[in-house]
């Protein structure tokens, strides 16, 4: 993406990127949590049974609910720590996109079944 050349006078103060970094990294964590619980429920019967929060949907209800709670918890904690800071976003972007890519791969059953 090319750098912007437009200048807008109202945007003279740069907002710290910590809140954005928290949202981005927590999304990567939440994505990996979906893949992690999918694999765990597939591999261990007791985990599968534990994650049946709503019987008609089976373990998918618990896998997604727990992953969403983890995602939100990670988001709240990271935002609380970073919202006033400017952090090294390049590294966080690479980690978040890496976690997302890994999640896409791990949710693919032939790869998830390797564990």
């Amino acid at each position, binding site marked *: 993406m090319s750098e912007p050349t437009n200048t807008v006078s109202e945007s003279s103060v740069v907002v710290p990127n910590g809140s954005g970094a928290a949202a*981005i990294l927590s999304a990567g964590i939440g994505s990996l949590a979906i893949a992690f619980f999918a694999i765990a429920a597939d591999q261990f019967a007791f985990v599968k049974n534990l994650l049946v929060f709503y019987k008609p949907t089976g373990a998918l209800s618990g896998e997604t609910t727990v992953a969403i709670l983890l995602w939100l918890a990670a988001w709240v904690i990271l935002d609380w720590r970073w919202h006033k800071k400017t952090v090294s976003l390049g590294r966080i*972007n690479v980690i978040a996109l890496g976690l997302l890519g890994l999640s896409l791969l791990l949710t693919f059953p032939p790869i998830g079944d390797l564990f």
Partner: protein
Amino acid sequence: MEITSRSLWTLIHGMGFGALYLLAGSGAIVALYRQYSTNVSSQSVLGGDRFLGIYLTVMAALAWLTVLSGTYIIYPWYRAAPPAGIVNLAAYPRSLLLSNPATRQWHSIGMEWKEHVAWLVPIVITAAAVVAIRYARDLRNQSQLRSVLLGFVAATLLAAGIAGFFGAMLDKNAPVEGGQTIRLVQGE
């Protein structure tokens, strides 16, 4: 002309929320590129910052509606266990697919991937929407945030595309049918 209530819900889930998300996703990539490329006037940039936040929020709402309707309305019909001794499995799509070696992997790979990969979409696009709203005009000063937004939207498009493809193929091989019959047009 009739449709069953379960077919209607499948349409709302896939052709409604899901297909709209895919359309909106390609639009978001164009919008993100246009918004932060050169040769855009300051006036349109200011309006565009606000528009981008609203646009990604609508996408997030569509993503949540898609996964929630899929998981809690349609999936229970898909995975319902047939009563013992039943021969016609048409009303039990999962069992129907698993009963034939030629269709078994539409469930074991297709549905197993779809049901999980789809859930990455609302998580990631919600984060993107919050970033777009939070930073709005300041996004032009945050090139790394813009880059990751583009990456996030592209990744959700891929995940939603996988889910949509398998949803369409599953519905082709073992459609979710049943429920109340809704008459759309009275026959002559």
